[in-house]
C-alpha cells in the first residue's frame, strides 16, 4: 500500500520534448477553439442582421458610446501623433532632403498607419475592455442566462449592435483623427521648422494617391469589426466570478492588440503591392 502511494505521488516521467509538444498542441487547440467560436459568432451576428432582429435604438446607443464618447481621447491621440511625426520627420529631413517632404511624411504616416492603428488601439482600451468586462459580469451574475430564459437572443441584443456600431464608428473616428493629425502636424512643422502651409501641402500632394485613403479606411472597417467581435466573444466566455472577469478582460485586451498588429502587418502585402 505504501509503495503504491509513493508511485502515485511521484512526478510524471514525461520528457521535456513531450511537454514541449504538449504545450504546442494545447496552444494549437485553444487557437482553433477561439477561431471556431469567432467564426460562429460572426455567422450568428450576420443572421440576426439579415433577419432584422437588431434594434436600431441599440445600435445608436452603442454608436454614441463608441463614437461620441471616444472623440476626446481620439483627438488628443491624433494631435500627439501629428506633432511627434512632424518633429521626428523634421529632424530626419532637415539636412538631407527638401523640406516639403515633411508634408509627404506626415500625411502618409497618418493616413496609412497612425490614424487607423492608434485610433483602434485607443478603442481597444476604451471600448474593447469595457465590453468584455460588461458582458463578463453579466455572465457571472447569470444575467446572460436570464436573457436566454426570457427567450431573448444575446447575439441580437448584445453582440450585433456593438459590432455594427464598431464598423460604423471606427472609420468615422479615423477620418477625424486623420484630419486632426495632419493639421496639427502641419502647425507643428511650421512652429518647429518654419515650414509654410503651401510647402507642406505641396509635399503632401506630391506623393498622394486616393488609394491611400481607401487603404486607411479599409483598415478602420476591419479593426472596427474585430475589436467588438473579440471583446464580445471573450466576455461571453467568462467564468469564475470577479477574478474571472479581470482575467478575461486582460486576456481580451492582449488578444485584441495582437490581432490588430497581425492584421496591420497583413494589409501592405494585400493592398499596397
Amino acid at each position: 500500500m505504501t509503495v503504491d502511494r509513493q508511485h502515485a505521488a511521484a512526478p510524471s516521467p514525461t520528457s521535456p520534448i513531450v511537454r514541449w509538444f504538449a504545450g504546442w498542441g494545447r496552444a494549437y487547440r485553444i487557437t482553433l477553439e477561439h477561431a471556431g467560436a469567432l467564426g460562429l459568432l460572426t455567422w450568428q451576428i450576420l443572421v440576426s442582421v439579415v433577419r432584422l432582429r437588431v434594434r436600431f435604438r441599440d445600435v445608436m446607443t452603442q454608436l454614441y458610446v463608441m463614437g461620441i464618447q471616444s472623440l476626446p481621447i481620439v483627438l488628443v491621440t491624433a494631435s500627439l501623433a501629428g506633432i511627434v511625426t512632424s518633429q521626428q520627420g523634421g529632424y530626419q529631413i532637415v539636412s538631407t532632403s527638401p523640406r516639403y517632404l515633411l508634408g509627404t511624411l506626415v500625411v502618409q504616416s497618418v493616413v496609412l498607419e497612425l490614424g487607423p492603428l492608434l485610433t483602434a488601439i485607443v478603442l481597444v482600451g476604451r471600448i474593447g475592455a469595457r465590453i468584455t468586462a460588461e458582458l463578463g459580469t453579466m455572465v457571472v451574475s447569470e444575467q446572460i442566462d436570464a436573457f436566454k430564459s426570457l427567450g431573448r437572443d444575446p447575439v441580437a441584443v448584445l453582440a450585433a449592435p456593438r459590432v455594427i456600431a464598431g464598423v460604423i464608428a471606427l472609420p468615422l473616428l479615423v477620418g477625424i483623427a486623420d484630419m486632426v493629425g495632419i493639421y496639427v502636424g502641419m502647425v507643428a512643422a511650421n512652429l518647429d521648422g518654419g515650414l509654410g502651409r503651401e510647402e507642406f501641402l505641396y509635399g503632401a500632394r506630391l506623393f498622394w494617391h486616393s488609394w491611400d485613403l481607401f487603404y486607411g479606411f479599409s483598415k478602420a472597417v476591419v479593426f472596427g469589426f474585430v475589436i467588438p467581435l473579440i471583446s464580445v466573444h471573450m466576455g461571453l466566455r467568462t467564468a469564475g466570478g470577479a477574478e474571472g472577469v479581470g482575467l478575461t478582460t486582460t486576456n481580451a485586451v492582449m488578444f485584441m492588440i495582437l490581432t490588430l498588429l497581425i492584421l496591420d502587418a497583413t494589409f501592405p502585402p494585400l493592398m499596397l503591392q
Partner: protein
Amino acid sequence: MITYRGVRKSFDRPVLRGVSLTVETGEMFALFGPSGTGKSVLLKTTIGLVVPDLGDVEIDGVSVYHGGKGALDAVRKKAGYVFQYAALFDSLNVFDNVAMGLPEAEMAKLSKGDVARRVWDVLENVNLEPHEVLSKIPSELSGGMKKRVGIARAIVGRPEILLWDEPTTGLDPINTAAIERLIHRLSAELEVTSLLVTHDVEGGLQMCDRVGMLEGGTLRFVGTPAEFRNCADPVVRAFVDRQAAEAALDTVETR
C-alpha cells in the same frame, strides 16, 4: 409535466450521472442536496441553459433537445426561471426588468398602458409597492426586494412552469419565510408546475407535494415529505441533520 431521462453532465468532473425524474403537471416538487451535487445544473437543463452531455428533457411530452430550436423557444415561453441571486439587468430599472419577462410577440401586441398595467399588477402580486420601486435600478434594492423583482419577472409572462433556483439563498430567516410563503401562494394561484431547488429542507418539506434528494450526481431519494422525514437511508438522515443544525445556527446568529 417535466420529464428528465437519464440526464448526464460533466464539467471538469461528472456532475449529473444519469438523472431520471418526472414532475407531474401542477405539482410542486422540491429538490434537495448538498452543495455541488448538480441541483442547479439539472434545473438549467430544463430550458437549455446547460445542455446535457447525454439524456433528454421533455416538457409535456415534447423533447427540449431533439425538437430543434422551435421546441426550445416554446419551452422558454412556457417556463419562468427565478435565479439564485435574481440576475436582474443592472442597467435597467425595475419596470424594464419586469417588462423583459413578457414574451416579445406578446409585447408587440400590447399597448404601453397594458404593459404598464401588467408590470404594476405583478409587482403588487409579489408584495412590492410599484410606485416606490418602478423607477429604481437593481443596485438601489435590498436583497429581498431583488428576489421579489426576479419572481415578478418570471411570472409576468404567465408561465405554466416555474423553476426556482435557491430562491431564499442569502436572505435572513424573516425574509426567507416571507419568500417561501410567496412561492407557495404563487404556485397555487397561478396553477403552475413548480420545481424548487433549495437548501432549506424544512421550507421545502412544508411547501411541496413531493421532494427528491440529489447526492453524488444521482437521485438518492424521491417521495412525499412524510416519507422523506421517515427515511431510514443514513445518507439522507445525515443530510437532514446537517441542514437542521445549520438552520438552527443561522437562527441563533440572526437573533
